[in-house]
């Protein structure tokens, strides 16, 4: 055990004196976590309203009401622009979209039996998610107009009279159908003549449904299924950042094994009265210690500076242990990818970066195509992030935590023994 500890202590000392290595293992992940936490993910305060331009060619009371409805809940901020300027600003990503309210909008908008006005919604193609949300808000504002119409019975009855007159005079509708429509409109007219406008304005919203969006996480230590907002965007960015640091450790120690050979110190280790198991165990212990140090540092900084929750220590310990096992094993396998430091270093990073790409280490998995998400199952990065997130904010139960941990441990053990066997065959 003393020899293993000596070997590990020596490797950690070498690591501590390697400034570039220290940067990529400790500093880079921190910068990554802070940067992506700052620019992405959910926030305590809602993000600013979507800024769009409305080109109101109708300039009617109804079009003004539509704009009021659209901006009512604060999700959308409307600015007025000439059409050309609006198009230009959307193209330059200064506006999320522009919306044209055509002439005659006020004549038909909010009237159930009239032809729907055709609205032109110009969107920035890179902001499709926002445009989808905007379409929903536009329809919601249109539904608000229906209620507004019914809240103004006199105005509505004028529209009705005009519609009845148009239906009576049109030749396109068969006489029998004209009679049915005339009957319907007369019934509505009768309803409007008798209804109290206040009842209508306080009454049903005419919206097909009210959709309330919430972000779903479980309350740590509480009842499963309870919903709660993520406290900090860093709770999402830090697990990915931690995995980058962990990958740095694995790549660094993989190179250090081949480095022992190239500088000749492996010869001294091999002639010393210690076994190959000691040598490999020393490397593994040093790598494990470095990984633990990276994770601990990141979590402590995340807790102190960015409000990351660390209130499930046992789950966190399980996630860390599984991650350590996985990447120590990978380190061993990576070390046999080449016979020179350059070969092992390049190959290690090439593999790890691909794993990060398909495992959600660069872009969260949810934003990746379905086939990439499927392929991502083979990436230890995905399982590491999942285990850490499960302990930090997903609120995994022990049973749920078992799956990523077992996958990580399985990958680690397989990789470790494969690498060790190859090293043994090469007489280290």
């Amino acid at each position: 055990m003393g020899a293993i500890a000596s070997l590990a202590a020596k490797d950690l000392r070498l690591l501590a004196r390697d400034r570039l290595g220290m940067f990529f293992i400790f500093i880079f992940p921190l910068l990554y976590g802070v940067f992506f936490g700052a620019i992405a993910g959910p926030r305590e305060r809602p993000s600013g309203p979507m800024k769009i331009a409305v080109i109101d060619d109708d300039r009617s009371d109804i079009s003004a009401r539509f704009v009021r409805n659209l901006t009512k809940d604060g999700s959308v901020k409307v600015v007025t622009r000439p059409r050309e300027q609006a198009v230009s600003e959307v193209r330059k990503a200064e506006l999320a979209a522009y919306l044209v309210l055509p002439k005659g909008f006020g004549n038909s908008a909010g009237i159930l039996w009239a032809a729907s006005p055709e609205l032109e919604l110009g969107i920035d193609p890179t902001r499709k998610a926002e445009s989808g949300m905007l379409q929903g808000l536009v329809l919601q504002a249109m539904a608000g107009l229906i209620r507004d119409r019914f809240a103004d019975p006199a105005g509505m009855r004028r529209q009705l009279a005009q519609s009845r007159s148009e239906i009576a005079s049109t030749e396109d509708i068969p006489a029998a159908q004209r009679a049915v429509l005339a009957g319907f409109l007369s019934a509505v007219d009768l309803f409007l003549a008798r209804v109290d406008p206040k009842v209508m304005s306080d009454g049903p919203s005419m919206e097909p449904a009210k959709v309330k969006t919430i972000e779903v996480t479980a309350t740590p230590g509480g009842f499963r299924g309870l919903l709660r907002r993520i406290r900090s965007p860093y709770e999402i960015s830090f697990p990915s950042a931690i995995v980058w640091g962990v990958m740095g450790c694995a790549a660094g120690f993989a190179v250090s094994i081949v480095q022992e050979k190239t500088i000749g110190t492996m010869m001294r280790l091999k002639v010393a009265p210690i076994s190959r198991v000691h040598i490999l165990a020393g490397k593994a212990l040093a790598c494990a210690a470095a990984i633990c140090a990276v994770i601990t540092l990141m979590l402590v900084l995340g807790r102190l500076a960015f409000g990351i929750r660390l209130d499930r220590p046992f789950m966190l310990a399980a996630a860390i242990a599984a991650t350590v096992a996985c990447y120590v094993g990978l380190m061993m396998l990576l070390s046999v990818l080449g016979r020179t430091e350059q070969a092992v270093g390049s190959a290690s990073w090439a593999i790890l970066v691909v794993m990060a790409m398909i495992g959600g280490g660069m872009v969260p998995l949810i934003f990746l195509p379905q086939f990439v998400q499927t392929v991502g199952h083979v990436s230890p990065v995905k399982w590491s992030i999942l285990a850490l997130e499960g302990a930090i904010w997903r609120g995994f139960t022990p049973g749920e935590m078992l799956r990523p941990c077992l996958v990580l441990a399985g990958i680690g053990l397989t990789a470790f023994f494969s690498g060790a066997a190859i090293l043994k065959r090469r007489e280290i």
Partner: protein
Amino acid sequence: MIRVTDLRKSYGSNQAVDGVSLEIRPGETFGLLGPNGAGKTTTIHMIVGVLRPDAGSVELNGQGSPSSNAARGRMGLAPQALALYDTLTAQENLAFFGRLYGLSGERLRQRVQWALEVAGLVDRRFDRVATFSGGMKRRLNLVAALVHDPAVLLLDEPTVGVDPQSRHHIFERIEALKKEGRTILYTTHYIEEAARLCDRVAIMDHGRIRALDKVDHLIAEHGGHAVIHAELERPPPPGVSLPGRLDDLTLRVETDRPLEEIGRLAPLGLAFKSLRIDRPDLETVFLNLTGRSLRD
């Protein structure tokens, strides 16, 4: 004692070591002399057990395989490469290697101090190896093999690439170790090192031992005659019979007793411009045995 019997190792079609047998006696300094690629390092690696021979056996101190921890603990290897950690200090390197051999506490501290003194690096003990000169690194490389006080020392080309001052320092230390009674296996391609340091020398080439004996015996056996080169100021007097061969004014005489031969030339009335005796040495031995020079 180290007993090597019919050791063989090949890499593909290259027979690196081809039936090497030798015996190194306790307290002896044994030299393996040969050019680069002769198989010296491969032999050493098989002796210390880091390389598995294709055939043959190695026995150390009657303890059997060199792979056993007991055998390894009694050996120290100074590899040909500078096997040191550049970003560790001299003291950290020595302490690390000492710990691998089970040293700790006061004993470790004493041995590290001793090794630093032997290497002449006490003043630089806290400096990183990366800042050392080639000679300093070579000295540290040597004492890193000594820090655990081994009875058997295997030095693989310990003076390669060092300045004359460091080489002299290393020679002195090895001679001191020799006086302490350590068994030393020393590989080199420098004739003067083998001649100065080694009790017996095995001449190795193409994986085989061509000859093995004390230096004097090797020279006597395989070195041939000494050669007297004399340059005369003028032609010898008429009627004088000279030994050897006279080419113009240069006389070349091969003899086993050069001084006696010169004594015989003196009364012949010759006027010498210069006189030189080339005695056979290990270089001549190697040349005679292999047909080529060590420096080829």
